[in-house]
């Protein structure tokens, strides 16, 4: 994963220069030892392999999000860590202790199930105190802990209620308090917002994030919602068909996706073919200068470049603002108003060659629409108001930043 920000570029002919993207927030100076790690985890159901060689660490107080579509194996990882499923190979280590062979009840992990799994015949306070009651703690201690946790999750006035009398968000807070009561080694959240409407989701997400900061327990979330993953995670692991595609900070995986899957899974992404030349990239007939790692990229390599819709700059003439590099010309095919911004679909014009063969992506009058390449661009409101564009307009397409995906092996 390699990314650049274009600093200046007046036109295609102008000299383009690329400098690395601004450095992302520096990682913690002293990385604390892993609170939880999985090493070389694999799992099969019959002959189907659902997990392959999964390894990651979660640091003390860190929030790791496992992001993936359904069937990517994320739930299985969670269940293996919790001890509800046995791995085929690999180890689960919690605070330095190998717990792979331990049953769920001896692991001391807290699982927040998607359905919350609150005990329906117990009141809120009984639910929260359950972990301590079965550990035969003293009544006084149980009462004090329950009171503290009720205050922490702000449910004091609901203590005598049954789960069925609470809202989804309140039930979830009870579920969290119930696991915090016995001081879990790690918290595991199984799609905790899956059953809620969008508004409640966003609200709860923030609440839980704040709560986790307060209690400082290492946590693993699983979700299929990329927005949720980026907002909640200190780091995010993108899962695809049972393996980790990329593991990094939200900034890294969004801005420097390692694979096409990661790029497209984390929101809208435009992908174009490009050819590596000694000191630049060839994108259609455009030349974009780039400094590439010669270890990964060789002259003549076919690669894909990825850029986000918000990285696209449009201009009616060849004069582009500083920091944008022209990659093609296009005409506007569709304009959609999406609230905060305007979304445009652009059909690229044919130009140049692509990786030794004539690109089927670019448009000529004879090329059927289906064989040409469209990209998506978004423009914030002020810009859309300043330069009005209409369907059919011919524009110059430039990008302010992009990522080059390593060539396929």
């Amino acid at each position, binding site marked *: 994963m390699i990314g650049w920000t274009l600093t200046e570029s007046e036109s295609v002919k102008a000299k383009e220069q690329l400098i690395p993207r601004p450095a992302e927030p520096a990682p913690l100076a002293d990385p604390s030892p892993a609170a939880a790690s999985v090493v070389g985890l694999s799992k099969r159901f019959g002959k189907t392999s659902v997990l392959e060689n999964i390894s990651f660490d979660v640091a003390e107080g860190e929030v790791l999000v496992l992001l993936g579509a359904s069937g990517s194996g994320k739930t299985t990882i969670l269940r293996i860590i*919790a*001890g*509800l499923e046995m791995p085929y190979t690999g180890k689960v280590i919690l605070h330095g202790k190998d717990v792979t062979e331990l*049953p*769920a*009840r*001896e*692991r*001391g*992990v*807290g*699982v927040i*199930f998607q*359905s919350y*799994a609150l*005990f*329906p*015949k*117990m009141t809120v306070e009984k639910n929260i105190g*359950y*972990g301590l*009651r*079965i*550990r035969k703690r003293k009544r006084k201690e149980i009462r004090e802990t329950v009171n503290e946790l009720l205050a922490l999750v702000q449910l004091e006035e609901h203590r005598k209620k*049954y*789960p*069925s009398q609470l809202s989804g968000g309140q039930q979830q807070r009870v579920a969290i308090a*119930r*696991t915090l009561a*016995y001081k879990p080694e790690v918290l595991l959240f199984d799609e905790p917002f899956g059953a809620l409407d969008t508004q409640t989701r966003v609200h709860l997400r923030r609440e839980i994030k704040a709560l986790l900061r307060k209690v400082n327990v290492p946590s693993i979330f699983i979700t299929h919602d990329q927005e949720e993953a980026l907002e909640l995670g200190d780091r995010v692991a993108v899962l695809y068909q049972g393996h980790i595609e990329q593991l990094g900070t939200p900034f890294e995986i969004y801005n420097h996706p390692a694979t096409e899957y990661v790029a497209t899974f984390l929101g809208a992404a435009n992908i174009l073919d490009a050819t590596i030349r000694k000191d630049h990239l060839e994108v259609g007939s455009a030349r974009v200068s780039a400094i590439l790692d010669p270890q990964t990229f060789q002259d003549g390599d076919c690669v894909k470049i990825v850029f986000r819709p918000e990285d696209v700059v449009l201009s009616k003439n060849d004069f582009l603002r500083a920091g944008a590099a022209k990659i093609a010309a296009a005409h506007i095919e569709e304009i959609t108003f999406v609230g905060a911004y305007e979304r445009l679909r652009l059909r690229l014009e044919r130009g140049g060659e692509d990786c030794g063969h004539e690109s089927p992506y670019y448009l000529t009058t004879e090329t059927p629409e289906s064989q040409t390449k469209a990209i998506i661009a978004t423009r914030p409101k002020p810009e859309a108001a300043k330069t009005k564009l209409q369907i059919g307009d011919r524009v110059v397409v430039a990008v302010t930043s992009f990522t080059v995906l390593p060539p396929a092996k």
Partner: protein
Amino acid sequence: MRHVRGFDVVRPLSIGMLVFMMLPLVFLPLASIFIFGTSNGLDKFWAALMAPEAVFALKLSMATSFWATVFNVLFGLFAAYVLSRHNFWGRNALIVTISLPTAIPTAVAGFALLLLWGPYGTLGRFLTPHVEIMFTALAIILANIFVTFPLAFGVIKPVFDTMSRSLEEASATIGATRWQTFWHVTLPSLRGAIVSGALLTFARAVGEFGSTILVSGNLAGRTQTAPLYIFAKFNEGQIEAANAIAIVLALFSFLIFSVLFFARDWLDVD
């Protein structure tokens, strides 16, 4: 459903017809028990009820039904747990077999028990000089267990089936042993099903006649249950004696039925 405004003649007519049809089929037979039983005065009724053999028959019915219920509820709980938690070859065959006894005529059930435990039965012949099972209270309990076998199971199993596995998984991750999970999490959710399963079993066992008459020997004061007492007294022409017990059994089944009917909400309360 009324399509015309105003008085709809179909409504009272259909309700009236329903009640009229039920009259000779259900209402009148029940009413006649009470009418005849009390027609000679309440003191006669009371005397018939307090006859030693009558009291014994009622007590025996209650006791044998009680033990059959205890066994079948525990068994039903266990069977429902095994059959809804594990999937194995022959699982459906087992479910059908458990449910079978309700479909078998009670006389056949009693006969089958005789053939097994009787003095010349498959197993009974080895026990005969030392232990006698047939023609004792134990035989009545065995017959009751047989004919009410699937009742508690049938009520408990659906609750097990619909119970979310994540409750038990949550309990395990919190640190509970299997037993603690069963006691604190699973069992409370089954409370309603257990109570109604037990009541159904008990009510059915108290009224059991066909199998009991074959296996008990119908010995007054020893193995005669309440329904057998009714039958015996009726045959002897002692209608009042039979009637007194019939009233008690009828009232008893009303009671259990009302509990089941009106307490459903309470039993399933969350």
